[in-house]
């Protein structure tokens, strides 16, 4: 082996290495970091990074989020009709960008995979100089990207992420969530379910096998068992599952009379369709009509599942049919631009972008520590959810939660859900150290650099 090639001597390699290292060290001598925080904008622009799933089970939500982001940037820069900028209270934005700088943006595809999402976010931070990353449509991805943003020293404004862990055991000082969470869904749904379906039901859970599914299942099990329902069985399904028939068949034999689908997006469309095709909804078990519940609902899902959603209960963060001024202003400008009403995913990402921009304007900086301070404990209104507060202890927004039901007689392609009840904030609030959220800590804000 050594005879065949003798071109390399130890000395030669060491020499080359030393020269190489010297050459490398050269430019490092002349550098020093001048900026106070990661990606401090120096020109007339400031860059936001929109990191959403464009492929995978949550691609529909991702596409709608992207539309909302574009709209938000337009409104912040003073374009269009201004949307919620006209209704947001308090408001510091002046319609000329943020801190006098025009907002530009870059987009990326998370592929609903943590690895790809982090690669995409990293390139936004390192290559494009993004000062804030926002997006997600899967809690697994949101938690992974939130961790990355904490390390890199930029703010992460979580998009659609419903797991308790995002602001629970995986919460980070640089991360903020406007969307509600699994615990809130369970707390809002339980009383409605009790009055609609009575007591003593036997529940079967199908759960998406990742952080969101786990925490939602835990929350719903806790809330339903507290009101006297019995949990028959919980089954985990991989996020990539497309055909749920093998999971549906055992339900019939299990003696359960209620099915909870802890699924979202494409998963929920497929599992619900499959459950309906198996005739679950026409069954009578133990003298009770079989019922299906989808704790986290969205209009996009309802559209995908079609007539199957009729009469099915769930909860949602926001719905376009709300009549307050903020919702109406948003629906109007979104409708004018894209010819359709926005989904809850679009709403939360739009609101997050505006809230971030407003916090920058209020604090007069893009420094994550300054912006974080401006967001912590911030109370606002006029953004579609009534009075809302960013709780300082865990960076979670607290607001009313909507309980919705699939409409029996939809009047249009978009009019698929009706709001059954608006559960007041007090009923869904919990202590920051609640057992379902314990085990993590915010840490300190990290400005990077």
């Amino acid at each position: 082996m050594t005879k065949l090639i003798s071109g390399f001597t130890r000395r030669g390699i060491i020499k080359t290495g030393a020269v190489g290292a010297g050459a490398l060290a050269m430019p490092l001598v002349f550098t020093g970091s001048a900026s106070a925080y990661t990606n401090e904008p120096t020109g007339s622009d400031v860059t936001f990074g929109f990191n959403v799933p464009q492929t995978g089970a949550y691609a529909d939500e991702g596409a709608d989020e992207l539309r909302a982001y574009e709209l938000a940037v337009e409104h912040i820069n003073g374009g269009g009709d201004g949307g919620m900028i006209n209704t947001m209270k308090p408001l510091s934005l002046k319609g000329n960008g943020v801190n006098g700088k025009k907002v530009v943006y870059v987009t990326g595809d998370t592929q609903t995979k943590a690895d790809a999402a982090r690669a995409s976010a990293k390139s936004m931070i390192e290559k494009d100089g993004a000062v804030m990353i926002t997006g997600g449509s899967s809690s697994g991805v949101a938690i992974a990207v939130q961790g990355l943003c904490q390390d890199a020293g930029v703010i992460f404004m979580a998009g659609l992420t419903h797991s308790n862990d995002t602001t629970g055991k995986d919460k980070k000082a640089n991360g903020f969530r406007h969307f509600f969470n699994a615990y809130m869904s369970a707390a809002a749904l339980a009383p409605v379910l009790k009055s609609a379906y009575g007591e003593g039901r036997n529940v079967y859970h199908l759960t998406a096998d990742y952080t969101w599914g786990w925490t939602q299942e835990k929350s719903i099990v806790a809330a339903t068992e507290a009101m006297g329902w019995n949990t028959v069985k919980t089954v985990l399904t991989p996020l990539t599952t497309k055909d749920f028939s093998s999971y549906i068949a055992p339900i019939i034999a299990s003696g359960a009379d209620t099915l909870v689908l802890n699924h979202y997006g494409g998963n929920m469309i497929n599992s619900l369709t499959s459950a309906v095709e198996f005739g679950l909804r026409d069954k009578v078990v133990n003298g009770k009509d079989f019922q299906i519940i989808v704790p986290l609902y969205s209009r996009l899902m309802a559209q995908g599942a079609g007539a199957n959603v009729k009469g099915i209960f769930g909860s949602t963060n926001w719905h376009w049919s709300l009549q307050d001024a903020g919702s109406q202003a948003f629906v109007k400008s979104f409708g004018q631009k894209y010819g359709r009403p926005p989904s809850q995913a679009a709403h939360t990402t739009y609101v997050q972008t505006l809230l971030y921009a407003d916090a920058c304007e209020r604090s007069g900086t893009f420094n994550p520590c300054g912006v974080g301070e401006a967001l912590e404990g911030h109370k606002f209104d006029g953004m579609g959810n009534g009075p809302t507060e960013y709780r300082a202890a865990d960076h979670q927004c607290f607001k009313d939660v909507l309980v919705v039901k699939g409409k029996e007689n939809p009047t249009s392609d978009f009019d698929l859900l009706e709001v059954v009840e608006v559960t007041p904030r007090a009923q869904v609030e919990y202590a920051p150290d609640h057992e379902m959220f314990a085990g993590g800590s915010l840490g300190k804000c990290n400005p990077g650099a």
Partner: protein
Amino acid sequence: MFEKLKNNDKLIMLGFTIMVFAGPIILAPFGAGYPDLLQRFAIFGIFAIGFNILFGLTGYLSFGHAAFLGIGSYSAMWMFKLLTMNVIPALILSVIVSGLFSVVIGYMSLRRSGIYFSILTLAFAQMSYNLAYSVFTPITNGETGLQLRLQDARILDAVNTSGSLPSPMLFGLKLNATNVVEMFGMKLQFNWGFYFCAIILIAAFYVSLRIFRSPFGLMLRAVKTNQNRLNYTGINTRPYTLGAFVISGMYAGLAGALLVCTDPLAGPERMQWTASGEVVLMTILGGVGTLIGPVIGAGVIKYSENIFSKINDKVLEGYFAMMPESISDFLVFIVSPFVGSGWHLTLGLTFMLVVTFLPGGLVEGATRIFDWLGSIGKKTKSAKPGGNTEAAE
């Protein structure tokens, strides 16, 4: 002939080292000079070099190499969580663990060859993926992926009071530190993590070169050419193929560990069959059985994944802004399906063209160009034999 090879190897090593170290400067004009992508080039280069030792030399096509990548990642992550943020123990453990796994998987899969071997490795990889995804959730944290936490033990490190997560380091040198330099009118980013990966890449390349030139490498090539004939001459080929399998498994484990060193997160999607397929694509695209090919293939694929997928309609409109609006709209309409989320389409087309017209991969393309240039040189000068066009094998 051997005399020439010796000199050539020296040249190859030197050229390779310079190219790798100058990566941040060379790639900056192409928008690829930022640390994350550079690190990926180096890491997937290592992965592909290792894969090429198995596939390129013995011809055994493994469809499950991502399993070792994932195993390396998880091992390294646990070292970070339990022992220390220093990357050395993490690298060592991940290479050992992935080596052990590849001994077991290799021992079973190598009882068959050809398509059966591929299917066996695919099955093992898919099993590992599913184990990581659901069965071993306490170890792997399932789909969410394994991340660092403030509360992790890290028994060798000083108690962390900063309130923020520690980052991977090499004896105190933080791997995520970047020095930004203004040079040639560009912002060049020199990142420690990249140079750490680059040094390992060069070492990995050197080891692979030595294997290619060794009697062991010759034996592996003999296996590829005609395994039956070897068996009939009384040589037991199993130890050789198993050796190659384990070496390439360890390369994959090393790459997996480096992924964690540059970005502390390990998720099961790293072990999915698509990831295994990706390294096959890289190797074939660059040139199977060539030394430098896999590195080039890895670079091309990672570049398109990270750059093409970022090009949206807005960016395209910017490209064609100088043209009349109708033409620019038309061009955007034509090009947009191939970029953004449609980058797979571009990759597929490139792959198809390469396999059809350049079965030897991009390296063959480069060789042909050099040959062509050489022949032109010969004609015009009609002196000396044309430039030495020995392929960068």
